[in-house]
């Protein structure tokens, strides 16, 4: 037993040659967010508050695809989504289609705490944000020059592109609009457990580059991108459509519960079931285990446990 925390900044085909100017700020961001989470756990904050706090930090960081730095839709707009879940009560909140809310994760928390519903989207969610007095800004706040360029590239290549992608060569253009293989992926998330075994999970994203307006991914869907119960908390990242189909986050908990295996085994099994290149996740169990498996080239990730273990990594896991 003991507290534990893990967070991610997206899994995907992150090239080993990722230039330092793209790698270092993300590593620094992960370190900063991990420290924020550790301090909060040491101060005995509830994991639900900890994951919200950490995801807010990740959203505010322009190098990750959530909040400021979100990728753009086919119309050049931002549509953000987020989800939060408490393990013991299984209470949860989710939002989609946000264009002005600075911290989508905090609106998800408000939906959980202040409405009879779980999930609000688009205009209704925006109206609720105003009613609750959450910080809102002009949609241009979220749009970074890097993401305008990324959208331009994606549209030239006439395809939907997932975050962190290298410039795409024209010759890989596909007739089929569907994405597979070479893309890289966004999203941020955090899971935490305290000494009493309270668990929580939170995930937030801008979605896919050049996504259709109105597209909803796995992030806000309970059981797909985000899930927590009395056994574990899970936040997934990768190709949304594959994660939805695989009900990835819920399945980690289901395999633990119904097969009686450890968190590590359950998470490894679930990731293995998803076609390679599509998914990564971070998870903690009620007993303080941590695991961060992925079947993509890399995943921006960090974790720490009460016994002093701490890790920040992008590619192959040293803990494997």
């Amino acid at each position, binding site marked *: 037993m003991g507290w534990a925390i893990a967070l991610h900044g997206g899994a995907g085909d992150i090239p080993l040659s990722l230039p330092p100017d793209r790698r270092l700020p993300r590593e620094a961001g992960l370190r900063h967010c991990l420290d924020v989470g550790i301090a909060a756990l040491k101060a005995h904050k509830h994991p639900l508050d900890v994951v919200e706090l950490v995801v807010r930090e990740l959203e505010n960081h322009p190098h990750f695809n959530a909040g400021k730095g979100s990728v753009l839709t086919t119309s050049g707009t931002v549509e953000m989504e987020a989800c939060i879940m408490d393990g013991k009560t299984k209470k*949860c909140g989710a939002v989609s289609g946000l264009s002005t809310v600075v911290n989508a994760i905090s609106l998800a928390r408000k939906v959980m705490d202040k409405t*009879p519903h779980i999930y609000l989207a688009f205009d209704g969610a925006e109206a*609720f944000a105003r009613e609750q007095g959450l910080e809102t800004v002009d949609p241009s706040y979220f749009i970074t020059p890097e993401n305008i360029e990324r959208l331009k590239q994606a549209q030239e290549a006439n395809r939907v592109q997932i975050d962190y992608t290298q410039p795409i060569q024209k010759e890989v253009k596909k007739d089929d609009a569907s994405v597979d293989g070479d893309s890289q992926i966004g999203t941020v998330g955090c899971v935490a457990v305290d000494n009493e075994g309270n668990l929580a999970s939170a995930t937030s994203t801008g979605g896919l580059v050049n996504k259709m307006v109105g597209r909803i*991914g796995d992030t806000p*869907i309970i059981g797909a991108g985000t899930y927590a119960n009395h056994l574990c908390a899970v936040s997934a990242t990768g190709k949304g459509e594959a994660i939805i189909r695989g009900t990835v986050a*819920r399945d980690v908990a289901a395999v633990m519960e119904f097969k009686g295996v450890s968190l590590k085994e359950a998470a490894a099994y679930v990731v293995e079931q998803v076609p390679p290149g599509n998914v990564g996740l971070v998870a903690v169990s009620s007993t303080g285990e941590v695991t961060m498996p992925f079947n993509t080239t890399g995943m921006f990730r960090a974790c720490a446990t009460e016994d002093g273990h701490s890790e920040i990594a992008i590619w192959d896991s040293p803990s494997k």
Partner: protein
Amino acid sequence: MGAWAIAVHGGAGVDPNLPKERQEEAKRLLTRCLNIGISALRSNLPAIDVVELVVRELETDPLFNSGRGSALTENGTVEMEASIMDGPKRRCGAVSGLTTVKNPVSLARLVMDKSPHSYLAFSGAEEFARNQGVELVDNEYFITEDNVGMLKLAKEANSILFDYRIPTIGTCGAGAAMDSPLQMNGLPISVYAPETVGCVVVDKEGRCAAATSTGGLMNKMTGRIGDSPLIGSGTYACDLCGVSCTGEGEAIIRSTLAREVAAVMEYKGLNLHEAVDYVIKNRLDEGKAGLIAVSKNGEVACGFNTTGMFRGCATEDGFMEVGVW
């Protein structure tokens, strides 16, 4: 090889005082939809086509809360949602926030077949509908007089404002709640329109599919998304089974109810009936819901912990049943 099976539902949580005539009307509609599904299965249509066909029929009839006859938002408008899933490759499509699409389930099918995504919502979904050339109608088309009256009652009961997750004290409701202490989704059951329609099918090849469609909750906030479009919650299909749920959306989402049936089959090795019993007994916490399910072996099951669920099922060997209580 296997035998086909089909089940349909028209919502869980039925007012015990619902007039007999209305019950009979519901049973006739369920029977008609079952028969449409049965003849499609006899013509060897794949399961995925059959669930779409049957749910379209349920949407088009104003009786249940989907398509025409959908429950109204607090603003008196209709916002519909639906999802569909094909077991063999677990392909899926979902839509939310539709206001003009005559058959939401067919748009969900097009999201699955014709878009790179799994889920489209609100204006983006409407735009996709226009691009795909599906039938569009004015929002008025979906609004029935019955539902305008129900919305008024719901607003009088004001009960959506209090959170049903917090234990309620029996005496605090408005007049309508006093008549009928039973509640669904925080609404007195006399006002609550049984949510949602759904269909699950396994065809002769053993392919399972599921589809669910709804107008959502009476007096809901605009923008509210329930369980129906959420893969794993309201709808799920895989190699083993197909499941469609109905009831208190938030309880269904928290328990990822549809996937749960499949998960206990897959990971615990239970058969379909055991799995359905298990999730209804153990997985709904305080919530109320019902579900229908078929397995690849041609079994059919339904379970609910509500007062009643509009449902019907049939199997290839000639068994057919339509029930409410």
